[in-house]
């Protein structure tokens, strides 16, 4: 699936990265007559071969299919030096990018998230509003397929969801009752997981570990949503092509990219416009690698902000253990697609931190996952092992505290002086410290989480104060803003320093919100794509991914 219109001539638009955002841009632009090329360092994955089809899926999740690229170590991965960070960045490198591994929990940011400076005096306001993004959230929901239900009092009203919510399970219902007892908000999550067949894809069969890839294609990853249509429309997607540098002319405008093809041969793809979609770590890495006379500190880095302000959502995990007689079989159903609570989402002057957090409810998984300490501590080895295992297996639920991380200059992605990837290209290094504000927020989330579990009837509550293997949201490293001295791109994702260079991934986030970021990343990407099409004077056909039921 690499065919498409055109040949190796100069592309109108070159996209780097075929993940969540790259796919959305490619599809949107493919509705025009533009000549579009996408370079992706990873390969196609075949859902029929995903590891959940095998008896040893728990072993594969620990090794060559792990979330952490440093553990996985596939040829298409690049290493990330995370020794200076208490959180390990996670990602997947393939057509579909990290959506191959994501859980597809798909909330939106709140209107207040775009105005944190005005409302709370911290960080910066975004140069756009929730209302500006809303039509693109809607379009993305339609393309990815959203299971959910309207009426959530914690969020503005939104257009009808494509599918009803996923079943809550006995475990989900028990925890919902706990929230109800306290009078605290909860609402079924929006999920890009089919609760009924949609978009030519099957419904979820509640197998559980959808983070390891969905064999049914019920979970929307962009290799099964946006990409097939974009390729049908003529986009040329070239896999196993690792970009080393974005090239520029003497005026500093982008001219294309130099990359290593699947045979390790160095090539150049020229383009009128370049769109980077390589995620919150891959994008600053690439910009910093692209030094030139016109951009001596790295491409688009006259503000010095490329790589700065790295935000994760630091996660604390609160696990409730339910007593004997509550055999909820909490391995049944997708790990993180149940419901969320946003009782503590907005700033509250009574608390000792600004901004807030969401709770995402998560289940347990298979026995090995529990024993080795999925989200909590490992079950101790030795004499007490079997007893403790029996106490927890099938009887634990967890609240993932998704805290809003604020941007800080010292949290950053830089080029590592020693570490390189398989092609010899310098690898990124992450320097990150958890802020006092984030720590207080997570502690609050743990304390309130205990109350929820007590109300729901748990006999024990275990807390993991900071999940090391929780760096799945990568944001802020090429910040958006109106002032070229204080941001890397403008409100359209266009680089202040090179008007034919756009960035569409999580790097451009001004602040992180307290929710999973991907619907926002993709909505921004779709918005930028429309802007690019207008700029290039490209006509449109209006096809979307109509439900094929």
């Amino acid at each position, binding site marked *: 699936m690499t065919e498409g219109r055109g040949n190796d001539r100069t592309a109108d638009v070159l996209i780097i990265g075929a993940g969540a955002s790259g796919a959305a841009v490619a599809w949107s632009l493919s509705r025009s007559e533009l000549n579009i090329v996408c370079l992706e360092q990873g390969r196609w994955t075949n859902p029929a071969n995903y590891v959940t089809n095998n008896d040893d899926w728990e072993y594969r999740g620990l090794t060559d299919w792990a979330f952490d690229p440093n553990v996985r170590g596939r040829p298409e991965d690049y290493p990330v030096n995370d020794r200076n960070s208490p959180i390990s960045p996670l990602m997947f490198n393939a057509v579909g990018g990290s959506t191959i591994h994501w859980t597809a929990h798909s909330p939106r940011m709140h209107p*207040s998230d*775009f105005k944190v400076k005005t409302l709370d005096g911290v960080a910066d306001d975004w140069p756009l509003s929730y209302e500006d993004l809303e039509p693109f959230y809607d379009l993305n929901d339609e393309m990815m397929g959203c299971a959910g239900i309207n009426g959530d*009092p914690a969020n503005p009203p939104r257009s009808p969801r494509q599918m009803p919510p996923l079943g809550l399970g006995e475990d989900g219902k028990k925890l*919902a009752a706990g929230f109800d007892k306290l009078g605290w908000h909860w609402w079924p999550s929006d999920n890009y997981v089919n609760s009924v067949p949609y978009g030519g894809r099957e419904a979820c069969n*509640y197998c559980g570990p959808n983070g390891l890839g969905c064999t049914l294609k019920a979970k929307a990853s962009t290799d099964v949503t946006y990409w097939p249509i974009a390729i049908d429309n003529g986009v040329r997607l070239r896999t196993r092509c690792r970009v080393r540098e974005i090239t520029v002319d003497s005026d500093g405008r982008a001219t294309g990219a130099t990359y290593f093809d699947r045979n390790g041969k160095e090539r150049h793809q020229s383009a009128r416009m370049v769109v980077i979609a390589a995620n919150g770590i891959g994008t600053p890495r690439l910009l910093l690698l692209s030094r030139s006379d016109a951009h001596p500190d790295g491409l688009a880095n006259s503000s010095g902000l490329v790589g700065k302000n790295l935000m994760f959502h630091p996660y604390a995990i609160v696990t409730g253990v339910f007593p004997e007689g509550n055999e909820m079989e909490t391995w049944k159903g997708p790990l993180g697609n149940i419901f969320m609570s946003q009782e503590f989402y907005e700033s509250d002057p009574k608390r000792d931190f600004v901004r807030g957090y969401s709770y995402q409810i998560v289940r347990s998984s298979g026995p090995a996952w529990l024993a080795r300490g999925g989200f909590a501590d490992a079950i101790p080895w030795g004499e007490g092992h079997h007893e403790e295992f029996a106490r927890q297996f099938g009887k634990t639920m967890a609240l993932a505290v998704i805290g809003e991380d604020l941007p800080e200059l010292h949290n950053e992605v830089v080029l590592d002086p020693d570490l390189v990837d398989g092609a010899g290209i310098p690898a990124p290094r992450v320097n990150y410290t958890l802020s006092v504000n984030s720590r207080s927020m997570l502690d609050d989330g743990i304390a309130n989480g205990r109350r929820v579990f007590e109300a729901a009837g748990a006999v024990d509550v275990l807390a993991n104060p900071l999940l090391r293997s929780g760096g799945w949201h990568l944001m802020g490293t090429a910040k958006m803003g109106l002032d070229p001295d204080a941001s890397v791109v403008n409100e359209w994702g266009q680089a202040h320093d090179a008007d034919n260079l756009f960035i569409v991934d999580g790097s451009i986030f001004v602040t992180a919100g307290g929710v999973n970021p991907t619907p926002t990343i993709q909505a921004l990407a779709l918005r930028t794509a429309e802007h690019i099409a207008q700029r290039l004077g490209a006509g449109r056909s209006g096809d979307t991914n109509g439900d094929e039921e």
Partner: protein
Amino acid sequence: MSPSRGGRLSDADRRALAVVMDRLVPPVDELPGAGEMGLASEVEQRARRHRPLRSALITVMDALSMDMAAHAAGGFRALSEEQQVDSLRQVEAAVPEQFAYFMQLVYTIYYMQPEVHERIGWPGGAVQPDGFDVEPFDESILETARQREPFWRRV
């Protein structure tokens, strides 16, 4: 036991690994410990397939052999069970990250065994294509949540 050379376990290491695994995951009900179940060779084979795991296994076995050299003749197997556990705790403290990764492998192999699944009541094996049954969403559960007035922050 001797320090392993060239990334491979010696025969003595292999024999010791089985005993180590019995201490880590001891017998329960009718099931013997993980070592006596014959899982040491699978641990070694699976570790060989993945470089970070291989290195964790070798590091742990090397550290164990060094700990032994300090206070025992006859190797790990010659120690009392209590001494074996003590020795393992020493190694865990000396190389915590590698020990934790090694433990993850031991648990993973143990909890992949059908007889273990039967004992713990887990359906076992591949979770696809069958999946599990979960009842469809029933809106009546939202009765309380729906009574809440909208409370998102207006801007």
